[in-house]
């Protein structure tokens, strides 16, 4: 629900939630930003038959969770730690995407302001 | 016919019966029209003593009526033969003389439009005499008809036969008159079959006479002359079933025996492209089946009355009744096994 309000707020700069960032990733940052890299290996993901939409940057935690699930079945409450790790990673990833969205919006607002005064 | 022979405890009548048989044979197998006429006359003369019974005034009157009509027809037949011999030298069948010869033969048979005597006389005869009248007496006029007929006239006569046979029977309650009109209707079918081939007529005639025999023997054994006598509820079930089967067979309903000759005649009708005539055959058959079914329906299903003092015991004749039911049902199917 909050996404809708946030998305609505960004319409004025013509920004939808599916758009990619268009500005330079390094602009405005003091430290050096690195490209995120996948920790889980491709052949591990393929052999575990994880569906495509779950093969993101948190997939190594997901693999650990699946391994723990298979080992502890049927007493799956014992996998709570791995599940918590995975969900934490997912939440961090979500927050990161939220921040990227907000950064994009602000940069566009700034650009509009600069081009309006110029 | 065996029944007739068997129940005839009068040796005079036996004598006249044999003369009647021979007269038909004379009429059929002669090679001159005179011989035919002689056969017809002897037929008439020998049939009259069979049906007249001096104790019963109705049968005397009936035999007199029969004598008058048949003799009129015979006279006309003789006259037309002589005119044909003297004045007409060709063999063309489509002329007025053939019409006149055919009408006298039709009157002999009891075919429309000269059929008015037929229901009257049938009303006055007993069942076995009726059987003779309806089957045997038709043989020689039919065969003579096949020797010299006018096609257009006969087709018109067929249509009249069918219509009168069906419409006239709608309003009857006497079983004899009902079978008379049905006989007139079947005459239409038989006349058409004569026009195709004599063999076909023989086939139709044999099956028709077998069906009529079964019906008439049933009515004779039960001594029933009117429709309201059929509604007695304590009839044996097999008798009612036999009645149903025979009536439906006479009407020409498919799995029964009577369907087969009608089927073959319809096939010949369609091959020779008599389409309108087929339609009339069909529709009149429908009307006839209607009034048969009306009788059977009432006798099967309605609970009219149950007589306490007269139980219809027919133990000695159950063989005949069951045999006739069996033949009526199965003969069409069995014939396919035998002949195909």
């Amino acid at each position, binding site marked *: *629900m*909050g*996404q*809708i309000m946030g*998305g609505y707020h960004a319409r004025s700069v013509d920004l939808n*939630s599916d758009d990619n960032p268009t500005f330079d990733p390094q602009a405005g940052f003091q430290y050096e930003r690195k490209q995120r890299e996948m920790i889980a290996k491709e052949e591990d993901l393929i052999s575990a*038959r*994880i*569906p495509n939409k*779950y093969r993101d940057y948190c997939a190594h935690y*997901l693999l650990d*969770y*699946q391994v723990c*699930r*298979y080992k502890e*079945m*049927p007493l*799956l*409450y014992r996998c709570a730690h791995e*599940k918590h790790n*995975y*969900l934490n990673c*997912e*939440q961090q990833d*979500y*927050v990161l995407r939220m921040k990227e969205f907000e950064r994009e919006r602000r940069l566009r607002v700034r650009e509009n302001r600069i081009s309006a005064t110029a | 016919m065996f029944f007739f022979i068997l129940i005839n405890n009068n040796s005079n009548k036996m004598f006249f019966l044999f003369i009647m048989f021979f007269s038909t044979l004379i009429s059929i197998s002669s090679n001159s029209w005179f011989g035919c006429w002689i056969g017809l006359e002897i037929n008439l003369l020998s049939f009259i003593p069979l049906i007249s019974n001096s104790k019963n005034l109705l049968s005397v009157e009936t035999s007199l*009526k029969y004598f*008058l*009509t048949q003799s*009129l*027809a015979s006279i*006309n037949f003789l006259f037309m033969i002589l*005119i044909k011999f003297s004045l007409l030298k060709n063999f063309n069948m489509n002329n*007025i*003389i053939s*019409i*006149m010869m055919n*009408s*006298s033969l039709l*009157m002999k048979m009891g075919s429309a439009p*000269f059929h*008015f*005597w037929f*229901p*009257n006389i049938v009303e006055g005869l007993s069942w076995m005499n009726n059987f003779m009248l309806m089957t045997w007496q038709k043989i020689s006029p039919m065969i003579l008809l096949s020797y010299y007929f006018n096609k257009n006239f006969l087709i018109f006569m067929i249509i009249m036969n069918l219509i*009168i046979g069906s*419409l*006239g*029977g*709608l*309003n009857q309650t006497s079983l004899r008159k009902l079978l008379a009109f049905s006989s007139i209707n079947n005459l239409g079918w038989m006349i058409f079959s004569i026009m195709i081939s004599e063999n076909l007529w023989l086939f139709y005639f044999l099956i028709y006479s077998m069906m009529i025999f079964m019906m008439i023997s049933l009515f004779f054994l039960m001594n029933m002359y009117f429709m309201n006598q059929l509604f007695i509820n304590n009839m044996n079930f097999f008798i009612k079933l036999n009645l149903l089967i025979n009536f439906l067979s006479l009407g020409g309903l498919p799995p029964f025996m009577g369907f087969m000759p009608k089927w073959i005649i319809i096939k010949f009708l369609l091959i020779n492209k008599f389409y309108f005539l087929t339609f009339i055959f069909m529709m009149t058959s429908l*009307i006839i089946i209607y009034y048969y079914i009306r009788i059977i329906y009432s006798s099967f299903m309605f609970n009219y009355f149950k007589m306490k003092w007269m139980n219809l015991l027919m133990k000695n004749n159950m063989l005949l009744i069951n045999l006739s039911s069996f033949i009526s049902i199965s003969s069409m199917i069995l014939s396919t096994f035998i002949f195909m």
Partner: protein
Amino acid sequence: MCFNSFFFLFFFMLINFFFFVYFIMNGLSVFFEWEIISFNSMSIVMSILLDWMSLLFMMFVSLISSVVIFYSKSYMNSELNLNRLIILVLMFVFSMVLLIISPNLISILLGWDGLGLISYCLVIYYQNLKSYNAGMLTALSNRIGDVMILMVICWIMNYGSWNYIFYFDFMKNDYVMFIISFMIIIAAMTKSAQIPFSSWLPAAMAAPTPVSALVHSSTLVTAGVYLLIRFNYLLIDMFFFKVLLFLSILTMFMSGISANYEFDLKKIIALSTLSQLGLMMSILSLGFPDIAFFHLLTHAMFKALLFMCAGVIIHMMNDIQDIRYMGGLSLYIPLTSLCLNISNLSLCGIPFLSGFYSKDLILEMVSFNSFNLMVFILFYLSTGLTVFYTFRLIMYVMISDFNLMMIYNLYDEDYIMLNSMFVLLFMSLLSGSFLSWFIFFYPYMIYLPFNLKLMVIYVSILGSILGFMVSNMGIYSLNKLLLSYNLSSFLCLMWFMPNLSTYGLSYIYLNFSQILFKNIDMGWSEIYSGKGIFNILKNYSVFYNIYQMNNFKIYLFSFILWFMILFIFFFI
């Protein structure tokens, strides 16, 4: 007979449970095929698909049905022909199992039609007029779904076989699949009683209570949801899924409102089932089939328990189902009211009961993903309404004063019924968390603001307060709702859908067919065929008789006349 079938089904449930754990551990799914007949190029093959979803559902169905049959040994012990009921229930379970395990449309049709037919037989089990009407409404509404599935069978012949699971990915953009998806959605809507077809579910409460516990809470009405879960890959991007979303959230909302006006105990429970079905369908049409399946299973547990408690209460109230006669039952029947309370609270989504896991997950997914404002509002409003009518029910049944008679004896210790309820109580407490471990292979991450997270609790508290206040009636209370008579009758009578489905649909046609029958069947068509022709023929025959009954001399004379005419022609 009861004990035999109870043991058989219980054993079947255990088998299913062990196979389910084995299958889900190893990620197995088994596809059996038996070739029945094979001609030259045609073969008839019976196939069975066993994967963890079907085994889990079969386990739940057999558990509930075994417990219900055991319960009905005591509930219906005065029934002379109890064996018929048990046989019907067993045939019902068989049809349901056939529906669950079948990967092709013909065996789905066998199970589907079997379900519809046997639920009709079960609804009309008490043979009175109300049951007959209810059964007719049930059977005909279900029949529409059957017709839709038959047409799907016709359309899917285009692809060569009836095994629908093989065609989802390949044929998604095809015109044929479009039509198939439309018809499958309508079939599921009739079976699961969504908005155009929802009038049969409250009416089907004319069935005996154990039958309602089995049929109308967990198995029959979830068959439609199960079918859509199986077809989910096909239907995800289709337009009709959005239509289904719209109709199912309206169903949820409508039945929540109507349950607040009802005073019949079983009808309230039926409307709450309808509301939860709307919830299941809507979360399915939003694209989360596994959450819908989860809610289906947990709902089956506590709803069956709720029906069984209602059965015990109805028995004690001398067969009165009206809640205005009940009250204060928690003092007298502690164990039954324990079960009733737990199932009611589980229905509301009170934390850590079984209903909480599924319902809360649904509501959080709705808040987290970006959906419509109307979807959001109706979801939360319906949750609040659920709590509203639940608390109203608890107030009426459990808490106020007893309203039936002066002297009463409320007997609770019928241990057959109680034992069967305890089994379901145990499952209803634990199945939520137990299933949430198994079903979700890939956990859902949900990250919500604080107030949005607590929105469920706000709505529940609001609903409970309203439920408490509405049911505080005394002798002096005025019913102010009657002032807005039109609006309140609209809301109360399920938005007039029963009337529209029954009288509204049939009135025009019956009227028209009366006109047709009188004027054409009994009128003109009798004159132009039938009687008319008979009259014509009869008149002809009578007319002919005038010629027939004549003087004999005239016949002979006419013959001579004929010959004279012909003779003259001869010489011309």
